[in-house]
């Protein structure tokens, strides 16, 4: 990530959608476009600067929302999926044939900005709240950036890049370490239930069974001895991410069975899902318990969940009558805590 103190021209702005182009989370229903973002998009569009999208979510849903808001026409090759945003920005760069140093990325999430800055050091990165200022920044007005200035800026930038070639972090793990992620997995209390219910109904990709309970039904699971409801909370150096994971366990038998595991898409790509499984097993599996099993009801959207279970040491063991796969934690050696996550 580079300070924008050189006037090399920005040719394309890549926007995050949720809480950047609009307020709210598209997959969770209502969104309201942010006036400052809209104005910047339209002003810069008028100057011939291109716009694109790199956002986590479901392409069909987000594209429909862009269409409804009459914004779709502004965005070229929008990338809405679950891949790292740096990967998507690289693809946009290739597809539009615009070098990465002429691309700016704008996102409300400081982790995403840090990640993109780490992965694509030549790009420019801005927080969502700076949308209104973009049109006034040097480099965002083609008429004020001459060819000579442009060339000089590029040389300067190349020099900076050479310096940046000694990266702040020796590898990706060090970058993740620097984010100082702290995870807690605890029993849910009454005050958590609205968020738990929301996650049940709104997560689809990282959701093992799609089990849906009302708040009243959830309330009944707290305090009975046949079920346990857990929530996972994450903090990092940028602040608190709140409840990012929920687990509903059937604890009646010798074996604990995971009836539901759902994770927020906002924290994908950090290895946190594995840390949640690790924390649950380490902290709460009672002594003498013979094993841990987990249900997976496969859908066309939750393939990542299967990968995640299998790469965390779970193996397909059986199938229920309804077709759900029963996974069993075969080798707990495979279930380790990522070195960049601390349990608190």
């Amino acid at each position, binding site marked *: 990530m580079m300070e924008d103190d050189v006037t090399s021209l920005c040719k394309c702005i890549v926007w995050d959608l949720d809480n950047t182009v609009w307020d709210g989370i598209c997959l969770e229903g209502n969104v309201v476009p942010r006036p400052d973002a809209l104005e910047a998009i339209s002003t810069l569009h008028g100057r011939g600067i291109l716009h694109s999208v790199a956002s986590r979510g479901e392409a069909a849903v987000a594209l429909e929302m862009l269409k409804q808001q009459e914004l779709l026409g502004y965005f070229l090759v929008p990338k809405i999926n679950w*891949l*790292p945003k740096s990967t998507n920005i690289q693809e946009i760069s290739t597809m539009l044939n615009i070098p990465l140093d002429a691309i700016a990325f704008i996102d409300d999430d400081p982790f995403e900005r840090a990640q993109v800055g780490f992965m694509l*050091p030549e790009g420019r990165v801005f927080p969502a709240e700076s949308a209104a200022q973009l049109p006034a920044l040097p480099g965002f007005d083609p008429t004020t950036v001459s060819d000579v200035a442009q060339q000089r800026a590029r040389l300067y930038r190349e020099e900076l890049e050479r310096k940046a*070639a000694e990266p702040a972090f020796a590898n990706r793990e060090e*970058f993740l370490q620097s984010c100082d992620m702290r995870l807690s997995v605890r029993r849910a209390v009454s005050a958590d239930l609205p968020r738990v219910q929301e996650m049940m109904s709104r997560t689809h990709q990282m959701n093992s069974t799609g089990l849906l309970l009302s708040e009243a039904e959830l309330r009944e699971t707290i305090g009975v001895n046949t079920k346990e409801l857990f929530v996972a909370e994450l903090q990092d150096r940028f602040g608190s991410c709140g409840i990012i994971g929920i687990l509903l366990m059937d604890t009646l038998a010798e074996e604990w069975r995971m009836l539901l595991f759902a994770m927020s898409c906002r924290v*994908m790509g950090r290895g946190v899902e*594995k840390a949640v499984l690790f924390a649950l097993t380490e902290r709460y599996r009672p002594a003498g318990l013979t094993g841990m099993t987990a249900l997976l009801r496969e859908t066309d959207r939750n393939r*990542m969940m*299967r990968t995640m279970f*299998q790469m965390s040491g779970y193996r397909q063991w059986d199938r229920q009558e309804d077709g759900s796969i029963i996974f069993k934690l075969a080798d707990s050696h495979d279930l380790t805590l990522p070195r960049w996550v601390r349990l608190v």
Partner: protein
Amino acid sequence: MVPNIENTLDAFIREHCLPRNSGISIGVHDNLFETGTIDSAGLLHFIGFIEETFDIVVPDEDLIPEKFSTLASIAAYIRERLDQPVLA
């Protein structure tokens, strides 16, 4: 003629999973997950690339740590698949 499998896999990882022009690389025996290089979503992207590049199908059941934790184990898996006779 199959290109060097390890190099092909390494090129993908450099392109998609490591910082650009950083000189950061990972060894063929380094664990892709433990080093934070790839996650579940990234693995599925990588599998898509492998299936297309080597013209093989990777069944979901095969996505286990023994086979997909390191570039070396993935390359061994790909070799094994390429050696198998194609079923009609």
